[in-house]
């Protein structure tokens, strides 16, 4: 207290007693309660409530971040999976068609077209338009077929 008496005269005047108290028989009973808590810990494993609370909060934050990352990843994959074909260059498409076109015979191709016929619809107007176009432009129908 000599240390503080020069710089704190008010403090030196205050009784240095303990202003706090405890319930009756607190210290008589405390050892038993502690040993009981240790016994419970042995049965159930170590329990650290404050640390557990802190970890639980951090785990929740970590889990949320992971969940958002997973949702974001699958969302990205979903958006981009339909466009995977459009990722091919026109050169690659041409190569593909050239490679496989030699394997496709004309009869097979026509059969395929027959099998995958469009549902019946009234194309009469459309066919008139096409024919009119072909005639006006003097396009030979046979040359179109040959090109196909």
């Amino acid at each position, binding site marked *: *207290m000599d*240390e*503080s008496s020069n*710089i*704190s*005269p*008010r*403090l030196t005047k*205050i*009784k*240095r*007693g*303990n*202003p*706090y*108290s*405890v*319930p009756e028989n607190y*210290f008589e009973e*405390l*050892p038993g*309660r*502690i*040993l009981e*808590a*240790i016994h419970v*810990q042995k049965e159930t494993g*170590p329990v*650290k*409530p*404050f*640390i557990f*609370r*802190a970890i639980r*909060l951090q785990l929740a934050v970590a889990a949320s971040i992971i969940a958002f990352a997973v949702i974001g990843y699958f969302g990205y994959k979903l958006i981009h999976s339909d466009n995977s074909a459009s990722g091919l260059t026109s050169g690659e498409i041409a190569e593909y068609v050239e490679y496989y076109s030699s394997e496709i015979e004309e009869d097979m191709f026509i059969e395929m077209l027959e099998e995958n016929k469009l549902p019946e619809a009234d194309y009469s107007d459309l066919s008139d338009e096409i024919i009119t176009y072909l005639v006006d432009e003097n396009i030979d129908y046979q040359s179109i077929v040959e090109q196909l």
Partner: protein
Amino acid sequence: MAKNNDKELLSLFRDENTRHHAFNIIIRKYQERLYWHVRRIVISHDDADDVIQNTFIRVWNGLEEFREASKLYTWLYRIATNEALSFLKQYRKKFIIPIVTVENILENSLESDSFFNGDEIQMNLQKAILSLPEKQRLVFNMKYFDEMKYEEMAKILNTSVGALKASYHHAVKKIEKKLGEG
């Protein structure tokens, strides 16, 4: 019951047959000093009760590995201090925006504590101590109330003696100013 010194108690603790008996003695030997140290940090009796129980549970779990590099009491005191500070940390985590500070909570606790028997002057002193930064409050309590030597405080708080002396000096000056404000 014959008084056991710390070496004997540790030896008894390391024997599984006498472990509980040894630990019971350790608790009875140190509980009051540790409790009051914790109580001055967390203020409320109920909180101090929680902290002191956690302290001794931690001691039980770690005592077998205690290497006796320091005195047993120094080791116990350090654990109790850390447990009390961890307890206060949870209040800080609750308030992201510190509208209500830990010091406000402790002051309210002090004013409503049914186990505070001091007069108005002692209440003012306790409030002045609560206004100190956490580390400084620790240093003040340990020096002023526990009359601990700086060398021992240095081992517990892992701080140099010089820094502790400076800290205590500043703490006393701040308290004097606070008491003057009345």
